[in-house]
């Protein structure tokens, strides 16, 4: 899903340095700002949320309604059950920022191992792993998620497993491509001529030099995983209901969108802005790494 041709060269810089130079890319700055905002919200959800996200206050309150009992203004209104939307959006940030990075990290762990094995060892390993990857990738993703989750049930764990299963082959392809390129570098040959093990070469000589494109890909993929979690929630296949989840909020309020549009629009803005943050950051990183 990333555009590999425009991704940074492996010689491009450590992650830290890239982020430091992001100062020069306003797109990257905006992206980082959006992400940091939501990370902050998620971290301090208990302090920031004015109400318990599950507490029933007053149903169908429009944004800005004054809630007499608690003496607070419901800035974003309440949902059909009377739960404070602002608090639910804040807690929802926490949900999504736990599961999306977790699923992405798992997918990367599997994808990188498979990709290194296929790209560095070539031959038999490569054929088998690539074929398996191709088969999984040929499956329409959402169909896959629906079947897996419909069969095994909706839970955070199953969502992470399903996303790992569906994303790892894509990551493997990227890592494999990078490894195929990097393994022909003279410094890899130099380490082979001093008898280094394959493991050392993969971990020290190849992986660190592939990080540029991988970081960009990870940002885009994280955005996509957030969308996926949202979509699953929206289709009613996400986390079990009481837990605040942006996609799920849209699903529950869908029928009332005509009269109470705020119930659906607000979580949609939340998820879109977070995904936008990751996509802008990826663009910024790509721009910065190309400039060198």
């Amino acid at each position, binding site marked *: *899903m990333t*555009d590999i*041709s*425009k991704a940074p060269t492996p010689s491009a810089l450590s992650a830290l340095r890239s982020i430091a130079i992001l100062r020069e890319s306003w797109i990257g700055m905006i992206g980082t700002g959006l992400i940091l905002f939501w990370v902050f919200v998620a971290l301090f959800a208990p302090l920031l949320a004015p109400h318990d996200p599950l507490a029933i206050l007053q149903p169908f309150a429009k944004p800005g309604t004054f809630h007499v009992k608690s003496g607070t203004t419901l800035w974003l209104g309440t949902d059909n059950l009377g739960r404070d939307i602002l608090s639910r959006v804040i807690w929802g940030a926490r949900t999504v920022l736990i599961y999306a990075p977790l699923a992405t990290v798992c997918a990367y762990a599997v994808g990188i191992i498979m990709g290194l094995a296929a790209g560095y060892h070539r031959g038999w390993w490569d054929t088998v792993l690539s074929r398996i990857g*191709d*088969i999984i990738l*040929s*499956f*329409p*993703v*959402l*169909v896959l998620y*629906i*079947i*897996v989750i*419909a*069969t095994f049930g909706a839970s955070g764990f199953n969502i992470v497993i399903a996303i790992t299963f569906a994303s790892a082959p894509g990551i493997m392809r990227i890592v494999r491509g990078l490894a195929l390129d990097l393994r022909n570098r003279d410094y890899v040959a130099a380490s082979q001529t001093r008898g280094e093990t394959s493991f050392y070469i993969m971990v020290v000589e190849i992986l660190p030099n592939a990080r540029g494109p991988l970081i960009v890909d990870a940002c885009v993929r994280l*955005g996509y995983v957030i*969308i996926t979690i*949202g*979509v699953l929630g*929206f*289709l*009613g*296949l996400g986390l079990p209901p009481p837990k605040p989840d942006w*996609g799920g909020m*849209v699903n529950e309020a*869908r029928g009332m*969108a*005509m009269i109470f*549009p705020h119930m*659906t*629009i607000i979580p*949609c*803005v939340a*998820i*879109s802005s977070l*995904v*936008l943050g990751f*996509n*802008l950051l990826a*663009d910024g990183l790509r721009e910065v790494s190309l400039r060198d």
Partner: protein
Amino acid sequence: MLIFIAKRFSFMVITMAAVSILLFVVLEFSPGSVATKVLGQFATDEQKNIWLEQHGYFDPLWQRYFVWAGNFLTGELGESHRFKVPVGEILWPRLWNTAVLGFWTFAFLIPFSLVLGVLAGMREGSKLDRTISIISVLTTSIPEFASAVFLSALFVFGLNWLPGTSGMISGFDFKQLIMPVLVLFLYDFGYVARMTRASMAEVMTTPYIRTAVLKGLPYRQVIMKHALRNALIAPFTVIMLQLNWLLSGVIVVEFFFAYKGFGALLLEASLNQDIFVIEACAMVAVFVAVATQTIADIGYTFLNPRIRFS
């Protein structure tokens, strides 16, 4: 070349076989649960056993798979226990509806995203390029359900221009198709346009474009004859693979707008454990995905003379 095509097709068959095995194992590994799904929660063990006996569920797994696969190939897809009709009867009309939706999406998506992508990539860093880039990041960042929400709020509830559902209860209505197509278009547009832009921008920096410019060719000819051909090879593959993505988007959009399509059928079937419908839908989806991939691969080699003649 012939060998290449033969290889692609055999890979396609292998993939289909692998997926079918996987699907079969996941869904029908334990006969007991199949019976529960078909006969419902409250069926007695005795009823279940009779049903299982009738349908050959006491045979070993591999034998059942071959019977199932054989039936599948002859178009015998089983019966939907929810609608109590053969699966084919509901599946084909639904698939046709989705094809209509997909057709109109592509009819707008391809010209728009290619033209804008090319224009942006032609002059990298220009105002137009920056505008198109930002629009495409924005649209790819908004999930289909969110853009459906936003667009409904605007066109359906705000301006009252369009119907908010697309059930087509009283026959086909083009107006009801606009919202779903628009949502799908927006989400995929950014992706294809960005790909095209990147591909075009890369081609524009190649030495052979410099050669063409320094040959004194008019700019039009540099673009039309020298750049486009090479720049559109990558987006071609992307667009073909986009069908795969469209299948995902279709599920969301059909669900949102209550459009009676294939995606909605799959989702309903999954939520209701309508096992034979799930199987049929999944196989159809995989077939469409694998077939387009095969066509994309073969098409790619035709577009690219470097592969065609080696």
